């Protein structure tokens, strides 16, 4: 079922190399500014720094996107790529901004709500990627089930329901190290993806979702997904069922109240000793 459309090898990629270099620097610069802004916005217990950080973050996001857009419209890909997808940029911006909110907000309940926003914008992006069913599933499972559980637990397990924010939420543990590790990682990936030896990286050429209309009937359809799932992944489906059972049993085991064995089992069966 995995119909692979191999990108044809060719020389156009080498053409990208020229603009790729400058593009790469700009994007890395945006990443660095984003890292600084995230560092400032992480809870330090001081308000002004985080406002400044937010400003920087907006700059980084905008700069990165403008650069991406310019690269796409002026680079060698311009012929292939129509005016860059405005929807992608809107939802990507919402997703990134609310992801930063998840990580930085001092009150857990707001973090959970920001996460709902991340989920919704990711779902919108999935629709752009022609995965409508996955978008719905994402909203139902993440926003509907998982996040509601999170909110319950936050209300249950925070002193005063998380308001006012606890001390450990107002000051983060090791912001500098965390930001360094993550953004060095991100920078390396971006650098490899956008600026590395492009002759090896063949994915960049084909514009996404071109000619999807022809394939839509068989590819994007829910029926194809279901058939594929049951034709090729029947055993993994069973395994997923086992895993869900295990987690159910485990969650009950872990979170059951600490009670003596006798009371759990019923008084009739007190061990003889």
């Amino acid at each position, binding site marked *: 079922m995995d119909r692979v459309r191999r990108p044809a090898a060719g020389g156009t990629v080498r053409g990208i190399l020229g603009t790729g270099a400058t593009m790469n620097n700009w994007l890395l610069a945006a990443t660095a500014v984003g890292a600084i802004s995230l560092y400032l916005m992480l809870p330090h217990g001081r308000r002004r720094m985080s406002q400044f950080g937010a400003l920087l973050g907006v700059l980084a996001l905008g700069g990165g996107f403008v650069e991406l857009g310019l690269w796409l419209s002026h680079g060698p890909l311009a012929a292939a790529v129509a005016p860059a997808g405005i929807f992608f940029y809107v939802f990507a911006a919402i997703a990134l901004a609310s992801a930063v909110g*998840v990580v930085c907000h001092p009150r857990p309940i707001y973090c959970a709500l920001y996460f709902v926003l991340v989920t919704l914008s990711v779902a919108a992006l999935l629709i752009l990627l*022609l995965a409508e069913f996955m978008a719905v599933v*994402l909203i139902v*499972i993440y926003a509907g089930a998982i996040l509601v559980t999170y909110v319950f637990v936050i209300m249950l397990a925070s002193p005063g329901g998380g308001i006012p924010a606890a001390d450990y939420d107002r000051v*983060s543990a090791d912001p500098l190290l965390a930001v360094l590790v993550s953004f060095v990682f991100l920078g390396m990936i971006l650098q490899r993806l956008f600026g590395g030896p492009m002759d090896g990286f063949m994915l960049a050429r084909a514009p996404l979702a071109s000619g999807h209309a022809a394939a839509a009937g068989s590819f994007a359809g829910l029926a194809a997904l279901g058939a594929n799932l049951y034709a090729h992944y029947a055993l993994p489906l069973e395994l997923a069922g086992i895993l869900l059972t295990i987690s159910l049993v485990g969650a009950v085991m872990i979170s059951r109240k600490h009670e003596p064995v006798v009371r759990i089992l019923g008084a009739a069966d007190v061990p003889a000793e």
Partner: protein
Amino acid sequence: MNSLAQPILLEYLALGAALFAIGLVGFLARRNLILIFLSTELMFQGIIINLIAFSCYYQNTAGQSFVIFVLSIAAAEAALALGLVVLLFRRRRTLNVDAWSDLRG
């Protein structure tokens, strides 16, 4: 939609990696147990974007199938994690991860 929304694969990958990295920041920097786990969910969002973008790029459903399994495992892990968090909160009345650092060499 077709003319407006034609970003290329790389942008989606960059977004997925960025979400993953932000989640990693949260995992390493936050001290609230719930938020630490919420950060891993953020990382999973990045992975989901990667998978679906590739699925769209290759026009096959393998990536979408993968996402279904990722979602179910994420749900299973979240159930376990929240159960554990409830237990820990009952013990010490705090969600501070530093409260559980008695084991030392």
